């Protein structure tokens, strides 16, 4: 019998069976769910399965594996699955979500304008860390825009923290205006001066 080469597009023998993968992801032991999170990367429906599993997963180690798998998928849709967890009441979930988004800066970057304009100041604040992963010019541009309109000092402080690294001389006027808008915030005055000093020293 002649050997017939399998078409490159036919990955069914190596792709885990969907139902089996879903069962492991949703109802397996901790180790099986952890393994399944990694296996889901190879499955065409991996993204939706990972999103469903993340919604119900409570074990930190498995949750981390799911966030890591989503970061490896590295698409705007994968970032969309992660975004709601920035609003979690659980600090560990927020941290894991933010770490995943920072690991896929290009994909997460497509959501950045919306995140930096979000109605929740905590989301805007965390989004500054995603902006840190953009190319420096782009990072500085979006964060200067943010501090020019932002009314929460803590969000400005988070943006200035990043601008101290990514900003340039063109960021300095916006930094000064931002500091002037919050004259009663001692940390912001400190941060503006420190960031200006660092930018000036480069």
């Amino acid at each position, binding site marked *: 019998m002649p050997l017939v080469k399998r078409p490159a597009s036919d990955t069914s023998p190596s792709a885990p069976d969907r139902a089996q993968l879903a069962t492991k992801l949703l109802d397996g032991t901790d180790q099986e769910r952890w393994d399944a999170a990694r296996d889901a990367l190879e499955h065409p429906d991996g993204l939706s399965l990972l999103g469903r599993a993340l919604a119900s997963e409570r074990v930190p180690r498995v949750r981390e594996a799911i966030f890591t798998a989503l970061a490896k998928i590295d698409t705007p849709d994968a970032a969309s699955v992660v975004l709601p967890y920035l609003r979690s009441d*659980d*600090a560990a979930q927020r*941290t894991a979500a933010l*770490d995943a988004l920072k690991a896929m800066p290009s994909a997460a970057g497509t959501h950045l304008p919306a995140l930096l304009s979000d109605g929740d*100041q905590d989301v805007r604040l965390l989004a500054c860390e995603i902006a840190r992963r953009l190319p420096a010019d782009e990072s500085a541009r979006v964060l200067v825009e943010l501090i020019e309109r932002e009314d929460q000092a803590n969000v400005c*402080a988070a943006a200035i*923290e990043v601008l101290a690294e990514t900003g340039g001389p063109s960021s300095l006027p916006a930094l000064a205006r931002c500091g002037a808008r919050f004259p009663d915030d*001692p*940390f912001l005055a*400190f941060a503006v001066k420190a960031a200006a000093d660092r930018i000036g020293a480069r």
Partner: protein
Amino acid sequence: MTDAAKKQILVVDDAALVRTYYRAALEARGFKVEEALNGLEGLEKILLQSFDLAIVDVNMPQMDGITFVRTVRAMELPVSSTPILMISTEAGPQDIAAARQAGANYYLVKPIKQDTLAEFAAIFCGAH
């Protein structure tokens, strides 16, 4: 030498400007300051050296502040009894409750004045 000069404080925060701000406030009062960039690095330092106080942020990469506090409290004495002051922008009651439940001694909401920080450090270090 004042009491504060003998006290060692660990500052755990991923924001460089925040660490610099805290360090300036604490060193001006004579405290010795060590820094960690996240909860994991904080754990490494607190296992290697005894601290009179840890000042810890909530949102940090790799390990958040709540997990850091919970982990420290689950360790053996004397590490588990290290006083911990949490400082965060998270001002909701659920955030404060989570910090207290994890074992933080006190929770301050940013922004914070340098004098206020140094006062609280002195209170929890017993350096008054």
